[in-house]
């Protein structure tokens, strides 16, 4: 129920959002490579988010090692509140996933009405194989190399309830992020 170029467009959209959302503290972009299967390490967790409309449901998962050092990834040198604990990897991955899924949601919103996005949920990566058991027409997995010490994996799973056809290129990305739109 999804056309070939819609599938390719969705993949491009997801890869672009991963590259943007996982840029390092100095602005270096993550390297994203397609892989056959997500094989998260033992003990890994995944941040799961969904985008849904009345015609489709898209599930995204980011597999990450919970013990990784988040501070290397953060632009801020430390917690703003001296009494606060540094952000956990769970919180950090939830927010990065939120930004990644948010970009895909905004771009899909150009083609499909009434899309809605979930908040992130953290679950054990042992649940990852069950994604294949979900009804789906399009699945993909990628390796995300944030830097030499941290590699993540990402999965995307689409279920359609109506024919899906659109074409998207990264060059069409018109949005400006980070700037204040005054009302």
């Amino acid at each position, binding site marked *: 129920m999804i056309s070939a170029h819609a599938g390719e467009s969705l993949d491009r959209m997801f890869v672009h959002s991963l590259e943007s*959302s996982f840029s390092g503290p100095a602005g270096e972009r993550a390297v994203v490579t397609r892989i056959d299967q997500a094989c998260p390490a033992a003990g890994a967790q995944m941040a799961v988010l969904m985008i849904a409309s009345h015609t489709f449901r898209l599930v995204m998962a980011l597999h990450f090692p919970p013990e990784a050092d*988040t501070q290397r990834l*953060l*632009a*801020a*040198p*430390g*917690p*703003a*509140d001296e009494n*606060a*604990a*540094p*952000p*956990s990897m769970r*919180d*950090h991955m*939830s*927010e990065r996933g*939120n*930004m990644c*899924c*948010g*970009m895909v*949601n*905004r771009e899909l*919103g150009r083609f499909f009405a009434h899309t809605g*996005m979930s*908040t992130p949920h953290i679950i054990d990566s042992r649940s990852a194989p069950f994604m294949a058991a979900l009804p789906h027409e399009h699945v993909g997995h990628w390796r995300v190399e944030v830097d030499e010490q941290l590699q993540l994996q990402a999965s995307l799973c689409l279920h359609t309830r109506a024919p899906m056809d659109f074409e998207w290129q990264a060059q069409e990305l018109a*949005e*400006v*992020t*980070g*700037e*204040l*739109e*005054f*009302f």
Partner: protein
Amino acid sequence: MAQILVVDDSSTVRNEVGGFLQRNGLSVAYAVDGKDGLSKLGADPSVKLVVCDVNMPNMDGLTMAEKVRSELRNSAVNIVMLTTENAPAMKERGKAAGIKGWIVKPFNGPAVLATFKKLAGVA
């Protein structure tokens, strides 16, 4: 006593935004959701600017903005949403609640610092 209240359920965002503002000389308070934000704002009338996420547990940011006007009867505080959302319907709801502006994440501190200072009554 704070000039800016940062409301976000993510500690990553609270640290990133609040840390940047503090390093640039602004005093910052924090809240973890809309309900907490409404309570903190009610308790600290010195806050001039609220930087607020939209999707949060317990109370979302747009509901918080509406309650700031209707329940706290605070029409003076400036509210800016910082969110991954960009849907026109959400922006219209924000405008109706009297919010001042909208930023799509990720946060770009240098791009908004001068404006934030003005909205916080510093510059």
